[in-house]
C-alpha cells in the first residue's frame, strides 16, 4: 500500500514525539511505531532531566556543559553540547507548560536533585540539576508528549515496523514498513524521514533495555551505506538489579544511597574521592567490576550492594516509589532495611547514526548531510555524549534534538520537492520478509540470540582487550552463518512475532559487528570503552569519532575530528 506525507517520523518515544509536535499543524506528518507510542522505552527513564534552572542553588548552563564534556572523556562535540545545555533550560519549561507533572520544591518550582557527574563551578561538588517527577521522569515525559500529540491530532501508524529506507539518488524519500496486524508491506513516500528508533542494548544479556530495543533504525541506515558513529561506546549503568538488569536510578545515590562491597566498605572513596558514589557511570561500573574481580563482591560473588537503609522510609517512598516497588516485587526484599544486590547493566548506546546539530544525518568525515534524512535520540550520535553519557542527559538529548530535528525538517519539506519513486522500492524489504517466512532451516532465532547476548556480555563488556574482541569477531561470523540457516515456526501474516524477532536478530547481529570492529580498532581507553591492553587515553591517535561502514565482505573504519570549543582535553579525575 502507498502513502504520501511531507514527513514521516519513525519511533514514538520522546525524540520522535517531540519532532512530530514541531511538524504537526505545519506539514503533513505521520508517526510510525513498531509499538503503541506509550510503550516506548523513554517511559522507563527514572531519575530526571538535566537543566541548569538553578531552582535550589546557583547553576549555569556553562557548568552543565563542562560536566557533559568532561563526562564524555572529551569525545563529545562541544558545539553540540553547548546547544544542548543552553536549550535544555527552555525545553524543560516547555515540558512544564505542556503539563508535565514535575515534583515541586517548597516554593512550588520544579524540583531538582543530585545526579552523577553533575557539579557546581566546574567540578567542585555535586549540584542539584536533575529536574524530576519522583523516579518516573521518563514516564511523565512520554505521557505528556503523547497527550500533546493527541491534542495536535498527529497521525499515528501503530505497530508498523520500518524495514527499509527509500533513497533516490542519495536523497531520502521515505520508508518501507511492515504492518504487523496484516503482514502487508507499505511504502511511505515522504520528503523527510526522521529516525527516532532508540538504542540497541538487547545486544547484551544483562541489560536495562526493553526487549524491543534492537537497534532497528541504526541497522537499517547502516545497511544502506550510512556510517555508524562511535559504536564501541556503550554505557554500563552501575546499578542494575542483580541478574535481571532492571535499572535502579542513579537518583537513588543522588538521594544519598551508597555502594558497599563485602566488607561493608564504601569503596567509591578509593576511586573518586570528590564525587564518591556520584562519579560518572563508566568509572563507577569499572570500580564495581574491579571490586568483584579482586574478590570483594558480596560473599565473593559477582555483585555488590546498593545501600539505602540509612535513608528515611518517607524519603524513599516519596522520591523513589517505583524503585521501592521494583525491589520488593523482583527481589522480595525491603530496601529500607536490606541492601540491594546490584551489578552493572548494559544501558545506553552513545554511538549511532551520525547527525549534525539540526538532526540531519551526515554521511562522511566532512559532515555532508544526506538530504531529507534526520535522526534524533538514542539512535543518533550528534555527538553530545562522546565516550560516556552523564545521567539525565539522555532525556535532555531526546527533547532538545528531537525538537531541533523536527524544526529543521519543517524548513526542509517546505523547500524540497517530492521526487518520483522508482519502481520496486519495496522489493528488498518484501523479499526479505518472504525469505524469512519461508525459512525452514534447523537453527533457532532464540538460540542464536541467546548466544550473541552471552558472548557480548563476556567479550564486549566493561573491560575489553584484543583477545576478547577477536574471539567475539569469530563468534559473530559463526552466528551470522547460523542466522542464514534459521527456520521459523509461524508462517502466518497476522502479528507474526516469530518473523519480527528474526528481523530484530538480523539487526542485532549487524550492530554487534560494528561495535566489535570499532572497539578493536580503538587502541586506547576512553569513557565507557576500556581496553585492558591499552589502559590509557591516547589523544594523539584517538581524539576522534569512529565511523564504521559496511562494505563488501566486512567493514571499513574511518575517523572524524571532534569539535573542541571551550574546554581543552584534560585528565579526568573526580
Amino acid at each position, binding site marked *: 500500500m502507498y502513502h504520501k506525507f511531507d514527513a514521516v517520523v519513525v519511533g514514538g518515544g520522546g525524540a520522535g514525539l517531540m519532532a512530530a509536535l514541531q511538524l504537526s499543524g505545519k506539514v503533513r506528518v505521520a508517526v510510525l511505531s513498531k509499538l503503541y507510542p506509550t510503550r516506548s522505552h523513554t517511559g522507563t527513564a527514572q531519575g530526571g532531566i538535566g537543566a541548569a534552572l538553578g531552582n535550589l542553588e546557583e547553576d549555569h548552563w556553562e557548568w552543565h556543559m563542562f560536566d557533559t564534556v568532561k563526562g564524555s572523556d572529551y569525545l563529545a562535540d562541544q558545539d553540540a553540547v553547548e546547544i544542548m545545555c543552553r536549550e535544555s533550560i527552555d525545553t524543560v519549561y516547555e515540558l512544564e507548560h505542556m503539563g508535565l507533572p514535575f515534583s515541586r520544591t517548597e516554593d512550588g518550582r*520544579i524540583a531538582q536533585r543530585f545526579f552523577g557527574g553533575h557539579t557546581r563551578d566546574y567540578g567542585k561538588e555535586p549540584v542539584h540539576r536533575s529536574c524530576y517527577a519522583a523516579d518516573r521522569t521518563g514516564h511523565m515525559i512520554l505521557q505528556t508528549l503523547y497527550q500533546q500529540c493527541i491534542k495536535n491530532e498527529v497521525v499515528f501508524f501503530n505497530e508498523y515496523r520500518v524495514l527499509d529506507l527509500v533513497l533516490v539518488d542519495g536523497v531520502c524519500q521515505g520508508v518501507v514498513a511492515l504492518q504487523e496486524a496484516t503482514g502487508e508491506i507499505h511504502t511511505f513516500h515522504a520528503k523527510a524521514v526522521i529516525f527516532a528508533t532508540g538504542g540497541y542494548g538487547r545486544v547484551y544479556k544483562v541489560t536495562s533495555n526493553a526487549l524491543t530495543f534492537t537497534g532497528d533504525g541504526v541497522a537499517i541506515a547502516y545497511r544502506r551505506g550510512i556510517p555508524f558513529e562511535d559504536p564501541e561506546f556503550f554505557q554500563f549503568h552501575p546499578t542494575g538489579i542483580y541478574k535481571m538488569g532492571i535499572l535502579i536510578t542513579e537518583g537513588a545515590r543522588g538521594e544519598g544511597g551508597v555502594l558497599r562491597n563485602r566488607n561493608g566498605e564504601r569503596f567509591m572513596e578509593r576511586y573518586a574521592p570528590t564525587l564518591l558514589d556520584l562519579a560518572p557511570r563508566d568509572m563507577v561500573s569499572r570500580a564495581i567490576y574491579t571490586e568483584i574481580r579482586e574478590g570483594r563482591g558480596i560473599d565473593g560473588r559477582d555483585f555488590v550492594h546498593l545501600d539505602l537503609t540509612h535513608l528515611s522510609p518517607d524519603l524513599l517512598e516519596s522520591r523513589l516509589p*517505583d524503585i521501592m516497588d521494583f525491589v520488593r516485587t523482583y527481589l522480595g526484599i525491603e530496601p529500607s532495611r536490606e541492601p540491594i544486590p546490584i*551489578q552493572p547493566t548494559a544501558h545506553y548506546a552513545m554511538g549511532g547514526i551520525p547527525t549534525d546539530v539540526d538532526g540531519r544525518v551526515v554521511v562522511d568525515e566532512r559532515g555532508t548531510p544526506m538530504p531529507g534524512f534526520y535522526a534524533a535520540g538514542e539512535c543518533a550520535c550528534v555527538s553530545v555524549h562522546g565516550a560516556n553519557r552523564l545521567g539525565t542527559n539522555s532525556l535532555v538529548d531526546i527533547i532538545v534534538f528531537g525538537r531541533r530535528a523536527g524544526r529543521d525538517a519543517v524548513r526542509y519539506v517546505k523547500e524540497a520537492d517530492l521526487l518520483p519513486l522508482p519502481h520496486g522500492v519495496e522489493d528488498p524489504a518484501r523479499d526479505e520478509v518472504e525469505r524469512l517466512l519461508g525459512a525452514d532451516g534447523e537453527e533457532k532465532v532464540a538460540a542464536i540470540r541467546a548466544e550473541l547476548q552471552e558472548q557480548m556480555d563476556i567479550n564486549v563488556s566493561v573491560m575489553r582487550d584484543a583477545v576478547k574482541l577477536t574471539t567475539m569477531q569469530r563468534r559473530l561470523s559463526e552466528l551470522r552463518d547460523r542466522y542464514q540457516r534459521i527456520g521459523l515456526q509461524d508462517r502466518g501474516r497476522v502479528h507474526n512475532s516469530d518473523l519480527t524477532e528474526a528481523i530484530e536478530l538480523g539487526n542485532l547481529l549487524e550492530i554487534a559487528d560494528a561495535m566489535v570492529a570499532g572497539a578493536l580498532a580503538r587502541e586506547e581507553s576512553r569513557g565507557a570503552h576500556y581496553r585492558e591492553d591499552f589502559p590509557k587515553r591516547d589523544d594523539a591517535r584517538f581524539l576522534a569519532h569512529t565511523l564504521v561502514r559496511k562494505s563488501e565482505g566486512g567493514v571499513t573504519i574511518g575517523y572524524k575530528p571532534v569539535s573542541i570549543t571551550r574546554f581543552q582535553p584534560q585528565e579526568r579525575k573526580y
Partner: protein
Amino acid sequence: MWGGAGRRHSRRIATMHVALKILRYDPEKGVKPHFVDYVAEVEPTDRVLDALNYVKWHLDGSLTYRRSCAHGICGSDAMRINGRNRLACKVLVKDVRQPITVEPLLGFRVIKDLLVDMDHFFELYASIKPYLITHSPEPEKERLQSIEERERFDDTTKCILCAACTGSCPPFWGNPQFVGPAALVNAHRFIFDSRDEGAAERLEILSQRDGVWRCRTVFNCTEACPRGIKVTLAIEQIKRAILYNKV
C-alpha cells in the same frame, strides 16, 4: 559478564518446571480459541513473562503476545493470569498457583493468542481530552504548583495505559462505549491538576451517557491496577466533582 573471581564464585540457581495453560487462537487457522498445555523451565525468581518467553523461544515460536520493558512500566503485557488481570512481567512464577492459566484481557477483540485490539482503548482515552488545557498566558518560567497541589493528582499520573483496569470492568464488558476506568483515571489526572483550566469541558464529557455514571463501583479496577492506583477512589472524586460542581 564477569571474569576472574566473581565468575568462579557465581552459583547456578536451580531451575524449576512450571505448568502453563495458555488460551491459543490463530485467526488464519480457522480453529476456535482453545487451551494448550505447556511446561516451561524457569528460575523461581522468573516472571510469568519469562515463562511465556520460554514457550515461545523453545517450544512454539508462533505464541503471540505483546511485551517490551519487562518490568512493569511500558504496559504492553496486561493479560488474565489465573483469572486476574496482571502484567505478565510483574508476577513471579513462584507466587501463582499452577497450572498458570493465561488468557487475553476480556472486553477487547482478540486478534491472536494473548494479543488484543487496543485501538478502541486508545480512542476512549483520547475522548476525555487527556492533555493540559489552559487559557492563561504561559509564564516565562514554570507555572508554580505547591507540593500539596501536586499531591492531589499524584496517584493518577502513574497510569501506564495497560488496560488491566478497563479489561476487568463489568460495565465495560457490557458496554464497550463506556469510557472505562483507564480513561477516567486520566481525566482525574487533569481535572485535579491546579494548572489545568479544562475541568468544565472534561466533566461535561464525563457526565454524558457513556461517561462516569456507567461505573457501578465494582472495585475490580482498583484490584487489577499493576501500579496500585486507587482507581475507584479517583472515579468517586470525579462523580463528586460533577455532583457538587466543584473540583
